[in-house]
């Protein structure tokens, strides 16, 4: 604090003397907030709506857009302003619950760093322009009169679904291009490839509530895996009596790991070997029926006896026997692979090895069931991955693109440095960003179109997981800025440039959506008395029920080929760029609530850190708060050490989300580092997906010490009984905890 030492008590005193005014002035509050008479304005309505009472909230249904899980929300609106989001109780994804990222949506909506005017690059710099000018430029470069040919055009987006996906596809077809790169850093692409090959279905439904044991290899289903709020409600049922047993196997403790009965720190990348070790124990020790597996798979599993598995994974044999014992005695079970297990060079093989366990245990058809088919395939989600980012960079490098449209993705920030994406993008002559914030990608575009926040805009969404309802997104209030436009409206404008005969009749996206939803063959809860009853019901509930067609799920056991563990002399440690429910992949770093919310494990706020095992810290001679340099073959990042036992001694975890450029947000600038930048070019051999956790690093002391800002400050209670605790032994005896000794 600019050299002046001030402790908390003094700070409160100062607050007391100078009153709230000073504190508020420091937080960019409008100076008109005062109790003084005659300073603030109170604005009356001209004509009141009968049901609007100032001071009393009205709730409208919509769909959360903070990640792609697609939770239903209710927005509380008072005096024309949306104030708070709650979960929509009728939404079958989140059953009325909402995570902190969802809650943070209001701060994305009211964010002071939103782009409000179109920007156009002139003389190298982005300057404000009129909509006519910006759209004129787009027409000139990608309109029918331009010389642009189909494949020279591309869309780069985050996950899209619903009618936006339909229109986006229509636009690509109208352009004659097949280039749609759908990029999400946090994804389940490898797992879905395995599902597709072994179950015949990309995304089956998991019955956590039916399972009596869950063994998760790196799938942080309570935090960052696919649909965490949905899984949390399922997990609660799983934990009801008789209490299910949760085993989490991962190199760095996640929120799910912290909830597990048994948390196993596995050597990163050896999760598949551990799965095969469990399979071996089940077949040999527990005499599980091996006939469900082809001979080659049986032979392959036979090679993974306890000694081999112990040696490769670093997990002791008694733990493996214990977990296998639970899996054998408690049926049905559910074995999951995700995150750290899949993000490896042999991620596909690992996820396949995990699926073999489900096949041996007979879980397929019991706790892994078919999701059925969405009747409107064209509205289904186009789920993103990192392979799309790699493919995009390759396409750009080949000089294949003349015009690129970006929406809901920030590849310049998320791309590892080895892709050299920033440089490569310079070779694309015309880049358009449909952006809400001045993020790294938008700042490198030639035209930036300011779009509505998701809470001012229209849309429909189908979730990749549990898409049993179409989520309706409707504005919760009038746009804050009259100069922003809806994404769907702009998409229609783009389409009208090329296909006026088909889309010219729609005044705007609202009109398109109303017609499209009214035409859906949906069974109404109430008999239709009004001609637009279906539309009214969609707006009222925020949900459109979908009858997914039934589908049989079948299991096909595939042999897997897993490598032995190899040490790397030069880069002895594994980098875990850990995602968290909060800043996510960095998109929410501009939301102060989420910066302020402590990390679920380390409790650090507003910063990056490097999680390290105490034994490793001792070996390197560092203490908590020491800055270390983490170097891969692609570069280095620096972070303060946080010492914690919930990490494998050979791993170092740096959270995703920080290290943004200063234009993005006043709340994110000069804050932490982005570990994605130093990732090595390691790809999953089978799917081509970037191996997010496949980077090896070396760690060196940077020679500095800084204070690690975290909640609590101390890991122990120094004998003061601030929080009631029981020992693990007592817990096991009295509260049904599992004996994991």
């Amino acid at each position, binding site marked *: 604090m600019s050299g002046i030492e001030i402790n908390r008590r003094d700070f409160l005193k100062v607050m007391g003397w100078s009153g*709230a005014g000073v504190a508020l002035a420091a937080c960019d509050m*409008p100076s008109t*907030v*005062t*109790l003084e*008479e*005659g*300073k*603030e*304005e*109170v*604005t*009356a*309505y*001209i*004509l*009141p*709506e009968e*049901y*609007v*009472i*100032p*001071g*009393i909230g*009205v709730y*409208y249904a919509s769909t959360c857009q903070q990640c792609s899980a697609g939770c239903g929300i209710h927005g509380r*609106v008072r*005096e*024309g*302003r949306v104030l708070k989001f709650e979960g929509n109780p009728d939404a079958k994804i989140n059953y009325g619950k909402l995570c902190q990222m969802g809650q943070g949506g209001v701060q994305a909506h009211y964010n002071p760093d939103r782009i409000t005017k179109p920007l156009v690059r002139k003389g190298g710099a982005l300057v404000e322009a009129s*909509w006519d000018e910006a759209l004129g430029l787009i027409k000139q470069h990608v309109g029918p009169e331009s010389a642009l040919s189909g494949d020279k055009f591309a869309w780069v987006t985050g996950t899209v679904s619903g009618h936006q996906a339909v229109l986006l596809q229509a636009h690509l077809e109208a352009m004659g291009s097949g280039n749609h790169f759908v990029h999400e850093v946090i994804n389940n692409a490898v797992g879905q490839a395995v599902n597709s090959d072994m179950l015949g279905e990309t995304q089956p439904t998991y019955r956590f509530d039916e399972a009596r044991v869950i063994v998760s290899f790196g799938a942080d289903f309570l935090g960052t895996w696919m649909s965490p709020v949905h899984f949390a409600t399922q997990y609660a049922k799983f934990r009801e009596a008789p209490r299910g047993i949760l085993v989490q196997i991962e190199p760095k403790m996640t929120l799910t790991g912290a909830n597990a009965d048994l948390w196993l720190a596995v050597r990163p990348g050896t999760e598949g070997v551990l799965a095969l070790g469990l399979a071996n124990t089940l077949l040999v020790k527990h005499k599980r029926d091996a006939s469900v597996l082809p001979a080659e798979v049986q032979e392959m599993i036979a090679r993974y006896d306890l000694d081999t598995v112990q040696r490769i994974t670093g997990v002791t044999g008694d733990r493996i026997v214990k977990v296998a014992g639970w899996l054998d005695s408690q049926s049905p079970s559910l074995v999951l692979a995700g995150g750290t297990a899949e993000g490896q060079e042999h991620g596909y093989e690992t996820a396949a090895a995990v699926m073999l366990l489900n096949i041996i245990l007979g879980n397929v058809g019991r706790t892994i069931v078919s999701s059925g088919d969405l009747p409107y395939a064209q509205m289904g989600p186009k789920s993103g991955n990192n392979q799309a980012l790699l493919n995009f960079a390759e396409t750009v490098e080949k000089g294949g693109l003349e015009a690129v449209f970006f929406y809901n993705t920030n590849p310049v920030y998320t791309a590892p440095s080895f892709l050299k994406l920033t440089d490569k993008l310079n070779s694309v002559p015309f880049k358009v960003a449909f952006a809400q914030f001045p993020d790294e990608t938008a700042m490198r575009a030639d035209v930036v179109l300011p779009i509505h926040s998701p809470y001012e805009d229209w849309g429909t969404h189908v979730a990749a997981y549990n898409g049993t309802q179409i989520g309706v997104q*409707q*504005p919760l*209030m*009038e*746009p*804050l*800025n*009259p100069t922003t*436009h809806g994404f769907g*409206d*702009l998409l229609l*404008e783009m389409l009208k440039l090329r296909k006026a005969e088909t889309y010219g009749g729609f*005044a*705007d996206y*609202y*009109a398109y959506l109303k017609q499209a939803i009214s035409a859906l063959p949906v069974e109404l809860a109430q008999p239709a008395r009004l001609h637009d009853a279906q*539309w*009214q019901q969609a*707006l009222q509930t925020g949900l459109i029920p979908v009858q997914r067609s039934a589908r049989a799920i079948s299991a096909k056991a595939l042999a897997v080929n897993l490598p032995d563990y190899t040490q790397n002399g030069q880069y002895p440690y594994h980098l875990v760029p850990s995602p968290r429910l909060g800043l996510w992949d960095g998109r929410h770093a501009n939301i102060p609530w989420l910066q302020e919310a402590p990390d679920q494990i380390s409790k650090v706020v507003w910063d990056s850190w490097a999680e390290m095992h105490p034994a490793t810290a001792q070996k390197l001679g560092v203490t908590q708060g020491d800055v270390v340099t983490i170097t891969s073959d692609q570069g280095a990042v620096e972070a303060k050490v946080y010492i914690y036992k919930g990490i494998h001694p050979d791993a170092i975890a740096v959270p995703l989300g920080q290290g943004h450029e200063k234009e993005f947000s006043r709340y994110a600038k000069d804050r932490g580092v982005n570990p994605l930048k130093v990732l090595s070019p390691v790809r999953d051999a089978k799917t081509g997906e970037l191996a997010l956790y496949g980077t090896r690093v070396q760690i060196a002391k940077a020679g500095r010490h800084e204070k690690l800002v975290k909640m609590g400050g101390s890991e122990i209670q120094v004998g003061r009984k601030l929080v009631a605790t029981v020992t693990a032994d007592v817990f096991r005896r009295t509260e049904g905890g599992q004996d994991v000794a």
Partner: protein
Amino acid sequence: MELGENRFGGKMSVNDRGFMSLMNRTEELSGGRKTGWLWAPFLSLMVFALMLSSVEAYAEGTVPNAVPPKGTYEGKNVEQPIEFPHDIHAKINEINCMYCHTYARRSKVAGIPPTSKCMGCHSVIATDKPRIKKLTEYWEKREPPPWKKVHDVPDYVHFTHEKHLKRFVFDNPELPVERVSEVCAFCHGEVKNMTVAHKVKPLNMGFCVRCHEANKGPSDCWKCHK
């Protein structure tokens, strides 16, 4: 690509420029429905006439079943866009406070009357007076007069008009609703003797707490600081 009119299917309340926050007028909202309601002035006038005929005169006195709060404050004179005469309305014409501040009984805020309510009478009454001419100008521009706030409590204080009116008026069988202004005066002073409102009570925590003690109101911190 202008926003269409009434695209909320009649569900949203913010289509009109005037439908803005009572608290903050920081942003301009884009256009919307601005026609209709021509009958509104006449309806309001009828209600007003009915009300006048039913008013009974009550002697000024203390409010039964209540101990008025103590304390005074020397407030500033606040210049308003129109020097609204509370005295003409509430004293001479004996209009009930809640006729204009209609949300007081239903919500935490009492509400500034919508401009349409003013025009309900003043499209025919006193149309030649300078203040009414100014009001009419605002109405024709479809802009509410930029009234200045006089009475306020900090954001960390939850005050609700609704609960106070319930306690002292609607749940108080000995106080007819016609005498509500005497209850309003607890915190706002004798507004019926003022033109524009003028802060004459301190509205600080001691003022609130002493009144809560005397009237057996809740003493729980979280009741107000929530």
